[in-house]
């Protein structure tokens, strides 16, 4: 078997046993990227030869007895997280050429665990989008059907894992940006609890929503990555001072879910959902029951308000966070006679359409005379949404739902209609607003052969519950195993 086809867990096992070297694994990844990246465009930057040098160092360390958990493992990192020595564009022209002088804590922890960063992956500009079409550097193509989007905003990371370019990747999730592309690309994606992992080095979009998430081909693979990067960081005041979660899932076992109460929220099975998606998700919920889980219908009555709440709070926070991009301290600068003109022109010319739209929406929602009616009211309804979750989690351990209303849509399908695009996130936004963790895992395919995702959400800081349930599901199903065709038929 070509090493690029190995799962993270299997690759690490073979390296530990001396059957595979990191050089062979990294070489196989680079060869696969060279062959298929032209069809997919998952990467904005590739490390190249330095990755092979790091692989040789990892092999030497292993021979010397180093047993770091991810030693020699190639990974990819969404281009909104900084890696010292690699460009960080956030998919935007306003950061073209920016070389960050520091590494994000989540990435640094993976490197300390032995992982090798192969490259930076494509994203909707500043993580604003659901299709990766908003990148200033071209769209990423879905490995299952290259005429379709990979989802977004972490579409490059999801596509890179689906295409077997890397066994795992980091992304960020503000409103669904890990879970929705994981669903569209047929991989497993975890959005941890708000505050579970450090965001130092994650370029801020919506500060009360952003989390660093992980992609892998299975819950076991995601658990290994998540265990290595989560935990408190004094450099991020929003990271909670808890012991880091360490979750190991045994791939030989057939775990059951006896005693686990799973809530099925009626508000997540609505008109407009693709029938094949609903069918596959309902069937997979039955699978959870067959593993011993107890099903209960539950209600999250304020679900319909999550979209308007999100599209006030996230743009409001973005309008403040993106004020720092003004052409003065980093990034390109438009030439002008006065400093004010530098600001207007640099931002007007270098930000893309969606980013400017959200900055203006947020600026309006925060402006004098409109603050209470828009931002203030959104904060109140957000409290109601969080209370919905708190009440349901008194009754059940997990909530099961679709990740997205549809499978991957065609590139350009939402054209000039931002609201239609925003509706893609209707099932993923609530977890961010409530701050609870969520996971997306493959649970079927539609008649076009496109992957369908099941979402599980859990109590705050209960990532272990999500990963164990997802693992139990994957140990009895094989929806996460097929390899996409990469546009070659």
């Amino acid at each position, binding site marked *: 078997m070509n090493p690029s086809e190995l799962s993270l867990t299997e690759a690490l096992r073979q390296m530990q046993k001396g059957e595979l070297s990191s050089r062979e694994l990294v070489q196989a990844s680079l060869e696969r990227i060279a062959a298929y990246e032209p069809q997919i465009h998952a990467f904005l930057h590739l490390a190249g030869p330095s990755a092979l040098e790091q692989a040789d160092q990892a092999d030497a360390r292993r021979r010397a007895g180093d047993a770091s958990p991810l030693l020699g493992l190639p990974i990819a990192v969404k281009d909104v997280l900084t890696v010292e020595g690699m460009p960080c564009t956030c998919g935007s022209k306003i950061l073209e050429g*920016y*070389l960050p*002088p*520091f590494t994000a804590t989540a990435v640094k922890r993976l490197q300390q665990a032995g992982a090798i960063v192969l490259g930076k992956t494509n994203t909707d500009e500043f993580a604003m989008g659901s299709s990766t079409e908003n990148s200033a550097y071209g769209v990423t193509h879905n490995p299952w059907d290259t005429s379709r989007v990979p989802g977004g905003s972490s579409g490059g990371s999801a596509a890179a894992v689906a295409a077997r370019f890397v066994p795992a990747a980091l992304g960020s999730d503000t409103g669904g940006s890990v879970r929705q592309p994981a669903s569209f690309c047929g991989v497993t994606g975890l959005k941890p609890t708000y*505050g579970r992992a450090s965001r130092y080095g994650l370029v801020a979009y919506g500060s*009360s929503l952003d989390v660093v998430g992980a992609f892998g081909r299975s819950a076991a693979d995601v658990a290994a990555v998540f265990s290595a990067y989560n935990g408190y960081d*004094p450099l991020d005041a*929003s990271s*909670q*001072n808890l012991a880091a979660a360490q979750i190991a899932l045994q791939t030989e076992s057939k775990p059951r879910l006896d005693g686990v109460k799973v809530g099925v929220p009626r508000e997540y099975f609505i008109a407009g959902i693709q029938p094949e998606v609903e069918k596959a998700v309902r069937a997979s919920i039955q699978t959870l029951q067959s593993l011993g889980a107890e099903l209960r219908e539950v209600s999250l009555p304020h679900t319909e*308000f999550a979209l*308007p*709440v999100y*599209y*006030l709070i996230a743009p409001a926070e973005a*309008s403040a966070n993106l*004020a720092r991009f*003004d*052409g*003065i*301290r*980093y990034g*390109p*600068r438009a030439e*002008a*006679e*006065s*400093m*004010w003109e*530098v*600001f*207007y*022109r640099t*931002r*007007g*010319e270098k*930000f893309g359409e969606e980013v*400017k*739209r959200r900055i*203006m*929406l947020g*600026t*309006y929602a925060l*402006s004098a005379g409109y603050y209470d*009616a*828009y931002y*203030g*009211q*959104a*904060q*109140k*309804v*957000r*409290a*109601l949404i*969080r209370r919905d979750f708190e009440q349901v989690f008194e009754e059940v351990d997990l909530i099961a739902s679709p990740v997205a209303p549809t499978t991957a849509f065609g590139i350009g399908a939402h054209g000039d209609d*931002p*609201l239609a695009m*925003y509706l893609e996130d209707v099932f993923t936004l609530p977890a961010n607003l409530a*701050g609870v963790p969520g996971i997306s895992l493959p649970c079927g395919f539609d008649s076009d052969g496109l992957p369908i995702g099941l979402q599980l959400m859990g109590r705050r800081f209960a990532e272990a519950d999500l990963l164990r349930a997802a693992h139990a599901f994957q140990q009895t199903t094989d929806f996460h195993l097929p390899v996409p065709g990469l546009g070659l038929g």
Partner: protein
Amino acid sequence: MSLTQQEVLHIAKLARLSLTPEEVERYRAQLSAILEHVAQLQRLDTSAVAPLTSMGAESRLRPDEPRPGLPPATLLNLSAQQQDKQFRIPPVFEP
């Protein structure tokens, strides 16, 4: 909820964005539609609800101790224009 072009220009000024005339009209139409959608929040009576303003448990303070940071030259080198160990910018005030 329908924005005027003047309102769009006012928002763009607050947000420090130069817009082309085509952008002003496109954003006027799109932002109007989005604001119409989010206006459904006004339906809810939230007079008894406290706004959610913090996701964490409570604010925590850390000791205010000096610690090493990145060297000034490293940071200045990221700038498009610099001079004499400072950022170089056009005039802030009219001469």
